[in-house]
């Protein structure tokens, strides 16, 4: 239905667009293999910054912490977000639904400094009243990340549920399956791909978060983005180029892989849709 070929105008805009998007990243990668300590001078090929990186204990330990927080918060946010998506897509109207939907979508656009500061003040007050949480650290960061990530998970799950043919759940009920069981037997397997992609989404959000983390972390808990930020503030640093290169390659592999899987799933679904 749409044009078979891309017009010259389209080619030019895509070309310029992709150049804008990719040139900075390519330069970043090139300089990670630079022998010079100066990130602005090219001086031969070297992998020394990678060995510096792998021997940097601060990087290794902060990466470990980030990974731990990302796994914990994406797991929790998928649980909460799936429930919230179900509530919004399937429970029909109830009192306070508007506020609920608002609280779900607000964290996605709200500047992170606002979210970070307000959550910090909550924890400070809680500590004064109840003596808990005693100090800021993994727990408080986790709460912050879950709150942010569950919003995204909810949106993904909710829209998947809204587009899903409801008669499939009704058919299960018609065949004698009870409501709670329908969720685990029918709904959950069908939305499993959406759950998986929202988990990945939550994971990347969490492992990449700097601002909310900065407000909610304590002295002993420095995540990888915090470490990078503190180094980068001091200026260019080839070790960070090496780290960035690894990040880019890992993410690219994952995204391309996930995209292939999704395209295949999509093809299956459209084939089904055509057949019915």
């Amino acid at each position, binding site marked *: 239905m749409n044009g078979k070929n891309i017009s010259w105008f389209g080619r030019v805009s895509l070309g310029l667009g992709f150049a804008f998007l990719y040139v900075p990243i390519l330069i970043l990668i090139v300089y990670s293999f630079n022998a010079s300590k100066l990130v602005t001078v090219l001086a031969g090929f070297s992998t020394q910054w990678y060995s510096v990186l792998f021997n940097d204990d601060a990087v290794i330990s902060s990466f470990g912490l980030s990974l731990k927080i990302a796994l914990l918060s994406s797991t929790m946010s998928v649980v909460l977000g799936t429930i919230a998506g179900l509530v919004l897509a399937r429970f029909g109207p109830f009192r306070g639904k508007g506020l609920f939907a608002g609280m779900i979508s607000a964290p996605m656009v709200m500047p992170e400094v606002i979210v970070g500061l307000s959550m910090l003040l909550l924890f400070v007050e809680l500590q004064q009243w109840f003596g808990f949480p005693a100090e800021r650290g993994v727990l408080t960061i986790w709460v912050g990340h879950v709150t942010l990530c569950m919003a995204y998970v909810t949106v993904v799950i909710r829209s998947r549920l809204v587009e899903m043919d409801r008669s499939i759940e*009704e058919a*299960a009920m*018609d065949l004698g399956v009870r409501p709670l069981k329908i969720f685990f037997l029918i709904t959950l397997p069908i939305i499993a791909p959406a759950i998986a992609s929202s988990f990945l989404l939550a994971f990347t959000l969490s492992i990449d978060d700097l601002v909310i983390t900065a407000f909610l972390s304590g002295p002993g808990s420095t995540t990888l983005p915090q470490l990078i930020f503190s180094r980068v503030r001091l200026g260019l640093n080839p070790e960070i180029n090496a780290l960035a290169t690894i990040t880019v390659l890992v993410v690219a592999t994952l995204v391309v892989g996930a995209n292939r899987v999704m395209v295949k799933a999509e093809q299956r679904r459209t084939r089904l849709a055509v057949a*019915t």
Partner: protein
Amino acid sequence: MVESSVHPAAGTAASKPYLQIVDVVKKFGDNTVVNHINLSISKNDIFALLGSSGCGKSTLLRMLAGMETPTSGRIILDGEDITHLAPYERPINMMFQSYALFPHMTVAQNIALGLKQDGLPRKEIDERVERMLDLVQMKKYAHRKPFQLSGGQQQRVALARSLAKRPKLLLLDEPLGALDKKLRQQTQLELVNLIDQVGVTCIMVTHDQEEAMTMACRIGIMSEGQLLQIASPGELYERPNCRFTAEFIGETNMFGGHVVEDEPDYVRVQTTELPRPVRVGHGITGTLGMPVWLSVRPERVGVSRQQPTAGGNWANGTVHDIAYLGGFSIFHVRLDTGKVVKASVPATRWREEAAPTWNEPVFVSWADTDAVVLTQ
């Protein structure tokens, strides 16, 4: 399992009602979608609810399935009041319009799901699934996933799944609506045969009159939440009880007028759209002078160059338009009163003489018994 391969004679409803819908009302807010429906269906009947979209037929079906609760009224199946039973507690199964096959399960798993809920032993489940697959000739595809099947195959799996639990009542929601036309016609009779073979009472909902007339032994016409007429397909077509039914089922010529002569075995209706009063060969329950509608099916209208000799039901006009459809043609004849009358004339009519052409003066006519008087 096979109980009967013969329908109860259409319209007789001799056996005691198996399903009773008693004064059922469904409101969504201020909107009354189903308005005081009463309906009785006998065992092994195939009943079709026919109406255009939004007439309330689907809501009625969903109330039978338990997906909606009636605002008031009762539903009784085989002597048991099921009005407030949850869908998963009813001995009723439904074939959904989209088929609603579970995409993550194989054909066999789809069919077995309902049986598993009843806690049947594994062996019996396997046997019954096998038998169902046999019945719909899908044995080869038992281990396929739904997306690997064609539309027709999916429909058969959906049917097998809804029959597997041996429901007391089978509900079909636009059963063949998702298939293309050619396949649909072929599948209609196949489906009826299967339902007969199993011997299950069946209610279907459709907006396709051809589907309803081919498959059902009784049809209920629904409009704006009300059941207007319940009758066999033939009766609906030949003896509609109201203007809506007459216009909804097939094509018709409709004239508005009033009764000028009211005898037990005939009536005469005066209409401004025809030159002289029309004689109709059946009595009505009504009064002299009451406004009525007159319905004459196009295939009952004759077209001729000569003035008809017998009877007074004729009018003269000119051919306004001709739609040539091969086996027959539709003549649109404009009468002197301005009314356009459609006449469906078989090609064999024009063996002796050439068919009239555009703007040719002709006469249209019909017999006493060909017109129906509609009082509402």
